[in-house]
């Protein structure tokens, strides 16, 4: 199920899932289904719970609806009391949103999904059924007249409730989907309008239209009174709730930190103690852990990316190569990156050349201290320099048959339309400078 993402232990072996495996048999609870639902997700949820095809459940509801509207009442009751969840049958499972935890109540998270056309169809169908019902029903007397306002009220309530469901559902989605704000408000407003119209209609039918003004005033007065009485309490309750949510998020974050520290840092410390007499190994372990922890602490996305992913920007690629070379050769490599850009073919070649330069620097210039790597994106030009403080070397003194530097650095850069320069730094050491023009933006 959900595995803690973005962690690799020191040996580069993917870790076992940091979380205990999900209980193979979670208790079956009744939820309303939030995906593939037509109205409130009641039928789908029930079907999922009872193990029946969803069509049957829907048919039963429709049938009961014909029975003096009992189905509608039942449906409404279910909608009101059963919590919205994930599940049901026959729904195309959206790919599970990879998260480091499951929701506290054991539900999985969803990825955002496009609204489907089936819902619109379903709503039309329901209107037709309602009309048939209205035509068939015989409540006797003048009661028939009240039907329309009642239907209006029902429609309004359904709209608002669905909206509330959506709001709750959006909370499980990845945050930051704000663009539908206006739509949400609009829907709620329409729902309220429908209800108001329905209620007013009932009043009018009762013949109290003459008193409508005073009735409305009285209702308003009552509403204001209730708001005054319950308002502070409600406000405090929402504040408490949001505070509680914040605390829960914090606790989760803390747990995540603890898990990370527990898994990788303690592990490394153990290894360091075990190989205390091997200076190089200790240094390598400590560097690797430091890098890992830094990436984890200072990455904006918190947990960092999965190490298995291919880097897709320059900064990531440079850091990745430096880390690998550092691990392999045990020489610290300091990386400074200014600016960033997406990788293209030429830049990937440049990264390969840079890596080769880092390997050389670590192998032949590692005694002089850390290797310094600098990468900069400026306009269309990407510049990378790799510098060591070793004894330095003379390119012309290298036999022609030794193709390392010539081929893998200079040749590679030139084949891809870039340039490579090797030079001896006056105060000792070697510097490799790689320059490459970025591909024109295709977008």
């Amino acid at each position: 199920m959900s595995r803690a993402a973005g962690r690799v232990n020191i040996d580069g072996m993917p870790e076992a899932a940091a979380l205990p495996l999900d209980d193979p048999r979670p208790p079956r609870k009744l939820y309303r289904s939030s995906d593939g639902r037509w109205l409130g997700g009641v039928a789908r949820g029930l079907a999922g719970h009872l193990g029946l095809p969803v069509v049957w459940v829907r048919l039963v509801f429709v049938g009961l609806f014909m029975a003096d509207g009992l189905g509608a009442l039942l449906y409404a009751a279910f909608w009101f009391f059963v919590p919205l969840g994930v599940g049901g049958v026959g729904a195309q499972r959206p790919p599970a949103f990879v998260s480091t935890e499951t929701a506290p109540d054991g539900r999985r998270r969803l990825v955002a999904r496009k609204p489907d056309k089936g819902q619109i169809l379903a709503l039309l169908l329901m209107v037709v059924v309602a009309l048939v019902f209205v035509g068939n029903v015989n409540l006797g007397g003048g009661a028939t007249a009240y039907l329309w306002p009642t239907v209006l009220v029902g429609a309004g309530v359904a709209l608002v409730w669905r909206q509330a469901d959506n709001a709750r559902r959006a909370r499980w989605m990845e945050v930051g989907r704000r663009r539908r704000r206006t739509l949400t408000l609009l829907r709620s407003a329409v729902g309220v309008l429908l209800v108001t119209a329905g209620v007013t209609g009932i009043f009018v039918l009762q013949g109290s239209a003459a008193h409508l003004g005073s009735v409305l005033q009285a209702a308003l007065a009552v509403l204001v009174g209730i708001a005054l009485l319950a308002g502070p309490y409600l406000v405090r309750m929402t504040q408490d709730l949001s505070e509680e949510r914040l605390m829960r998020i914090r606790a989760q974050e803390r747990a995540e930190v603890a898990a990370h520290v527990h898994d990788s840092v303690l592990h490394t410390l153990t290894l360091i103690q075990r190989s205390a007499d091997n200076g190089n190994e200790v240094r390598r372990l400590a560097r690797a852990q430091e890098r890992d922890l830094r990436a984890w602490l200072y990455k904006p996305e918190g947990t960092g990316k999965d190490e298995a992913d291919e880097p897709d920007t320059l900064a990531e690629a440079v850091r990745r190569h430096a880390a690998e070379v550092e691990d392999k050769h045990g020489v610290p490599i300091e990386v400074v990156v200014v600016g960033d850009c997406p990788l293209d073919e030429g830049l990937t070649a440049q990264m390969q050349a840079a890596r080769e330069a880092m390997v050389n620097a670590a192998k032949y210039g590692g005694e002089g201290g850390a290797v310094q790597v600098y990468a900069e994106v400026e306009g269309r030009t990407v510049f990378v320099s790799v510098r060591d403080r070793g004894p330095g070397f003379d390119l012309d003194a290298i036999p022609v048959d030794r193709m390392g530097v010539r081929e893998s650095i200079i040749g590679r850069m030139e084949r891809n339309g870039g340039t490579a320069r090797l030079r001896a730094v006056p105060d000792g050491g070697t510097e490799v400078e790689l320059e490459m023009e970025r591909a024109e933006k295709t977008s």
Partner: protein
Amino acid sequence: MSDANGPVESGGSAEETPSAAASAEATGKTEPAGAAAGGRRVRVVLVDDHRMFRTGVQAEIGQTERTGVEVVGEAADVDQAVTVITATRPEVVLLDVHLPGGGGVEVLRRCAPLMADAEQPVRFLALSVSDAAEDVIGVIRGGARGYVTKTITGTDLVDSVFRVQDGDAVFSPRLAGFVLDAFASTDAPPVDEDLDRLTQREREVLRLIARGYAYKEIAKQLFISVKTVESHVSAVLRKLQLSNRHELTRWATARRLV
């Protein structure tokens, strides 16, 4: 010297001219100070909440006979730091960025009058393990004269302390990178042309620092004197502290996808 992880550029280097070093008030010395600094002395206060780290630094640079650094006080949080600094009036304070009680920035804020003292200003050098641009740029804007990482060798740290004592700026490669990011050319019009832009020369110097060059090497590379390099770096520091571009940190922090 500017390079936090670079070579050991101590007094043993080729162009030792003790005569120049003898004038203690000469600012912008062309040699790194240190063991052979002609008996220079600097009084230092260590501010760091990790006792282990303070002990380590004390052991590495605190042997006054050898290094010329005299540790006159230590502090583990903001209040202590302000008290100790006010009482001892050191020339240089080694300041950790993360401190209980408000962080290094708070110490800088409360010691502002001491920094501005015309007679004997207290100067700050930030020392941190942090990789976060807002931390680093925050303490520089708060008035620190430089920033080095805690992985710096003892010798380099001593050099940096003497540099700060002379009123020069100390930039680690990482800080140089942050500053280049922060002052990157953007579409936003500068509020103050003099403060919100780096000159071409300053940019070149910063780039070389980020590439791991020591001041001396930069001077050779650009055919200018070390003093000129230092004045460029100090100018950058001044811009960093005085620029009103509020986005400075944001730019340095955000990944600038060009």
